[in-house]
């Protein structure tokens, strides 16, 4: 980016059409990337589901299915067609939200996913909130107190966070907080006492309970979610604090920080407003990425906590060789990844004025 060109554009106003077309071009390019990535995702799941297994129908229906059902499935999956036509059919079905039927639940996979996904979203969202709320202050602290004991501590916390197997920590947490101390609820999202009286419209239990003003239920839901969400949150904290530290160190070394000091601003304003506001630009990407990681981390966490979300759905399907369900879940998580990437890119553009003009 050449500064003269940009200022020329804004001074005369004549080049503004060119600027608009540049934004248009970037958006178009970005849309193309999203589409190819999504097609790539479908190509991989197609490959896993249709090409690797010797008989995809058997892989989907299991070997005890009646012959008529097998023939019907063969027809529906278009297995008599050439591979590229099969893939087109597969893409068309996937875009229509048709991932086939689950052997385990005998319902369409999409229906199952729609039912379980909110539980995962709730868990990952709360985890990310916890991770961000703790990770950013810790990272800022480490950067400001660089080289001190506080910095070292944050560094070690981060490294340990990167190294712990989450399912193991979950088991230990369960042992301590559920079995020994009895502080938390287990298993699932809500205690049996409330399971049938409580209706959730959004699928986000905590949100619904609070909205209905039922504090008793809200507390019970909270007791169920806090440990899994806290665990996921501590992982995202490890990642976010590390990245925050690194970004803050970069920003604190910039000239504009010296200029801000020369203006007589207080140190806290310089750190929390000037430096952090600049560090926030790349941090948005990091937080989106860590949210994506938590969706993935939930696969293992949900298994331990019997949390009825997408992760548990996928692992249950795995144990039962329910390929349609596994691949449907994979596509949904992959699509969420792509969506999060898109979102972080858009946020990046709005937060950084320098990319807005481009």
């Amino acid at each position, binding site marked *: 980016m050449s500064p003269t060109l*940009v200022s020329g554009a804004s001074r005369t106003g004549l080049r503004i059409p060119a600027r608009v077309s540049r934004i248009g071009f970037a958006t178009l390019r970005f849309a193309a990337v999203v589409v190819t990535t999504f097609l790539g995702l479908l190509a991989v799941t197609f490959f896993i589901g249709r090409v690797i297994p010797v008989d995809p129908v058997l892989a989907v229906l299991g070997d005890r299915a009646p012959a008529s059902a097998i023939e019907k499935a063969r027809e529906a999956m278009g297995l008599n067609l050439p591979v590229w036509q099969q893939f087109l059919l597969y893409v068309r079905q996937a875009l229509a939200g048709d991932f086939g039927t689950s052997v385990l639940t005998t319902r369409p996979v999409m229906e199952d996913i729609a039912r379980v996904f909110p539980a995962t979203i709730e868990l990952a969202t709360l985890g990310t909130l916890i991770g961000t709320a703790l990770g950013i202050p810790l990272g800022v602290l480490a950067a400001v107190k660089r080289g001190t004991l506080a910095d070292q501590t944050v560094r070690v916390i981060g490294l340990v966070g990167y190294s712990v197997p989450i399912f193991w920590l979950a088991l230990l947490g369960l042992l301590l907080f559920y079995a020994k101390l009895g502080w938390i609820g287990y298993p699932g999202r809500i205690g049996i006492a409330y399971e049938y009286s409580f209706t959730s419209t959004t699928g986000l239990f905590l949100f619904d309970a609070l909205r209905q003003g039922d504090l008793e239920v809200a507390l019970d839901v909270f007791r169920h979610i806090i440990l899994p969400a806290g665990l996921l949150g501590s992982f995202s904290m490890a990642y976010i604090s590390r990245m925050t530290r690194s970004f803050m160190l970069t920003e604190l070394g910039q000239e504009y920080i010296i*200029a801000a000091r*020369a203006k007589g*601003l207080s140190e806290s304003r310089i750190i929390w407003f000037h430096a952090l*506001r600049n560090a926030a630009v790349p941090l948005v990407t990091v937080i989106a990425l860590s949210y994506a990681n938590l969706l993935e981390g939930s696969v293992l966490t949900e298994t331990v906590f019997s949390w009825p979300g997408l992760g548990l759905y996928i692992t249950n399907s795995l144990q039962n060789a329910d390929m349609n369900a596994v691949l449907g879940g994979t596509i949904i998580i992959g699509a969420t990844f792509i969506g999060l990437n898109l979102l972080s890119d858009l946020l990046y553009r709005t937060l950084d*004025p*320098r990319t807005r003009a481009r």
Partner: protein
Amino acid sequence: MTPLLQVEDLRVSYATRTGLVEAVRGVSFTLGRERLGIVGESGSGKSQTGRAIMGLTPPQAQISAKTLRFGDIDLLTAPPKLRRNLRGGRIAMVLQDPKYSLNPVMTIGRQIVETLRTHARVSRAEARQRALEMLAAVQIRDPERVFDLHPHEVSGGMGQRVMIAMMLVANPELLIADEPTSALDVTVQLEVLSILDRLVGERGMGLIFVSHDLRLVSSFCDRVLVMYAGRVVEEIAASDLSRAKHPYTRGLLDCVPTLGTHRHPLPVLDRKPEWRL
């Protein structure tokens, strides 16, 4: 009348693995409401001197001096809060490159308003008004529009004028300009200098102009300090520069090519170890 700034035997040193490194080694001068130039090569300690007066040296720097007074305030014993209030309020500083010294994610207007509201109790509307006036004072033609721009949207010369506006908006008495034109195109340099010159004159401010460019400094300042290896080797009125005695100063002067003379080989700056002493 007490001078604006009194510096006596100022030393700035850094502890490194190989021992104490002194970046500034006993600099002394007094400054009234005048223009003082500090000239030297990179590493001569000129910028460190400016930063020490501002109180902007990094935390690991050790600063000592017999006297370091700003008006009636002893800067050496002044509590951090007071020093912070001085910065931007009564002593301001213009940095080298506006591309890096303006906060990229804040609009120009907000950055100027921020300085003002840190040091003066003014309403939002009034702060905006004064920021716009300040932008006009640094000869920005359309202040209303520039107010809402981000730093990357203006050219280097305009960015430096914004920087000057941001630093002068709270009416400081002393301005330290650290190589304020070195990062700019030559054509823009003079423009920015003349703005700086006029503002300093109009407001009766003291100015410390730090630069490596002896000619520039001598045309712009009343008095020149020539620094070498952390020391002042010569202090001279700008008008007497052609009569400079110290060989280092003479060397700096001779480095500048002049029109009409043809010199080969080009002179190389002499650096004698005994000048360090």
